[in-house]
């Protein structure tokens, strides 16, 4: 077992803050790991984000989009071109005890679980419930993270009537699924509905023309439409959907890629090629804010630790810090040579992940990971990584570790 021990024991910290929640043999541990998918060879590299050392590399069937669960215990590698979904136990687990969280750090491990299907695409996880969408199939698959970690994924399905490029959002007893365009299922979905796992529809279908893009933030989940967002909430465990319309004050456009704030409940999405939109659903039509970028965006990410900030990487090779309250770019930093958004959408271009106090940006052309201090917003290190390092996720954090 590997642990990174803080300078002071938690017992000492507890004394300092007047808590009695831990004993002398408890110690603070911080661990962050990066999972980086290579676009040239089908692999995922696991990297110690502090030591910048390669921990392990896993072979996949094809290039992968990576998704981490909210617990951070599992990373899923969705290999759309090869029809495979693989899972990796990150080796980092937290156990919440209210007044503190315990951390358990072990070696990462490729899990036996693998899903095969026609064109796996959108992956959504909420509170340990997972929905994996397959663009070429007429049902979505649902399972729990725990069942994957235990090596026995228990798959439930929900019929979606016609194969299409859509999305499913999982809940304990229900799912929200996109509705295919009845005239042409190859076009974007036209709405969403709540279903259960016995084949029943719950409530009315809700229109969402051009549905594409989804994200969760706190207790809300959002689907992006050409007309606004569908906001999904649950009161008694059953999802309820409401449409939040783009205000007339916004210029023409819509979001098709969404991310959800962590620590602050908001959504951030693209709005055309060179703008972002920040959405605070609690403020209704007053809650939309546009952010103008200097050039077309390449990728954006939210900061789960400094929730006031998000980051966006633009074609000119710059990383920008976005203040989600003011909607302003507060700092910019040139990290790479320019990357053009012309060309195939899935060409390897920089991607962003936040690992503790580091913002990590992949630079596929330079075969490098760039490390930026999230507080000073200065580049602090590079790490060479052979191949075309592309998609990246970070897992980790701090907790208490008990030992003799």
């Amino acid at each position, binding site marked *: 077992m590997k642990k990174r021990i803080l300078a002071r024991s938690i017992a000492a910290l507890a004394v300092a803050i007047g808590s009695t929640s831990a004993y002398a043999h408890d110690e603070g541990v911080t661990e962050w790991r990066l999972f980086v998918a290579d676009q040239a060879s089908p692999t995922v590299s696991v990297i110690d984000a502090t030591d910048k050392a390669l921990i392990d590399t896993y072979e996949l069937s094809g290039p992968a989009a990576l998704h981490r669960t909210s617990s951070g215990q599992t990373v899923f590698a969705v290999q759309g071109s090869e029809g495979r979904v693989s899972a990796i136990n990150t080796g980092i687990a937290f156990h919440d005890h209210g007044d503190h969280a315990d951390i358990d750090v072990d070696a990462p491990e490729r899990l036996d679980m693998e899903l095969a299907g026609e064109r796996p695409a959108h992956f959504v996880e909420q509170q340990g419930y997972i929905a994996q969408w397959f663009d070429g199939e007429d049902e979505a698959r649902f399972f729990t993270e725990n069942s994957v970690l235990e090596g026995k994924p228990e798959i439930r399905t929900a019929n979606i009537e016609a194969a299409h490029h859509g999305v499913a959002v999982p809940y304990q007893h229900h799912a929200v699924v996109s509705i295919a365009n009845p005239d042409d299922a190859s076009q974007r979905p036209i709405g969403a509905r709540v279903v259960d796992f016995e084949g029943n529809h719950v409530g009315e279908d809700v229109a969402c023309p051009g549905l594409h893009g989804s994200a969760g933030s*706190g207790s809300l989940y959002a689907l992006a439409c050409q007309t606004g967002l569908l906001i999904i909430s649950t009161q008694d465990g059953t999802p309820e959907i409401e449409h939040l319309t783009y205000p007339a004050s916004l210029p023409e456009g819509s979001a098709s890629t969404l991310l959800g704030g962590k620590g*602050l409940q908001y959504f951030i999405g693209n709005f055309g090629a060179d703008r972002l939109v920040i959405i*605070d659903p609690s403020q209704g039509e007053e809650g939309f804010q546009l952010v103008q970028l200097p050039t077309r965006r390449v990728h954006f990410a939210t900061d789960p630790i*400094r929730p006031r900030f998000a980051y966006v990487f633009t074609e000119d090779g710059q990383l920008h810090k976005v203040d989600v309250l003011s909607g302003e770019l507060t700092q910019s930093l040139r990290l790479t040579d320019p990357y053009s958004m012309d060309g195939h959408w899935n060409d390897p271009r920089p991607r962003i992940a936040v690992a503790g106090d580091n913002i990590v940006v992949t630079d596929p052309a330079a075969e490098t990971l760039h490390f930026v201090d999230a507080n000073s917003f200065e580049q602090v290190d590079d790490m060479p990584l052979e191949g075309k390092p592309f998609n990246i996720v970070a897992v980790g954090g701090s907790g208490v570790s008990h030992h003799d």
Partner: protein
Amino acid sequence: MGLLRAVVTPLLVSMVAFSAGTAGASEPALKVVASFSIINDFAQQIGGDRIALTSIVGPDSDAHMYEPTPADVKAVAQADIVLINGLMFEGFLARLIEASGSDAEIVTLTDNAEILQDPQGGHYHFIGDKAVFHAAPEDPHAWQSVSNAQVYVSNIAQAFCAADPAGCRAYEANQQRYSTTLTALDDDIREQLSTLPESRRTAVVAHHAFRYFENAYGLTFFAPQGMSTESEASAANVAGLIDELQSQQVSAVFAENISNPRLVEQIATEAGLPMGGTLYSDALSNAAGPASTYEAMMRYNVATLMSALTPP
């Protein structure tokens, strides 16, 4: 939840006719943020129309699980005073304050209140075959005894006086008036509940939000969850609870306004107990509901308890 607003009502308080000259100021003397709806009501009672009041967690919403919004951050950034419960009740608070960069006075209303420890004495972690004990946090639901509510209100009045000396007489007058209301409320609760026989003083609730109530008024509540709704009850917790209920004189099971009732309904079914209604635990109702103020909440809870627990 009416989806989009857990809260945030920038509220210029003007609804109650307060004593001793509270009215008048065209500009609020203080910008106050209350962390959740019960504190919001206390602040409204004391501040009257001298304050501009914003509540973070709104009616029928669960502060244990709340995720603050950018609008909340802006409200805290502009606040003179932020009123909080403390005792780790507002898990969102640290990141909210940090994100706001606020230099507002943070006032912890449970200071000087009588605080209960987890009666089960904490919890164990098992490291291999070795058990490690962690003392549990203090129970944050202190407002569930009216005597503690008096402490909350006193702390608010002191904080308002310190920040706005010109309004101190008004705040103190409001506190005096409201304190009288709370004293009468406390007396009334005791009088009503005293009529319940010993065999009808035990019930089940969704999470341990009522320890202060049982300690003050002599009832006993069992709960499948811990003190936070964040800790989901395990199947073993539930099975153990149902076993335990068999040996107790439990009269009814109550849902809570902030929790999904499914779990307690399952417990009621499996234990053969009646559902007694919904109690307001960690949040008020909206203005149209039966518990839109602290006083209304406590009276509604007592009426619900009396209705279910009074012998047929």
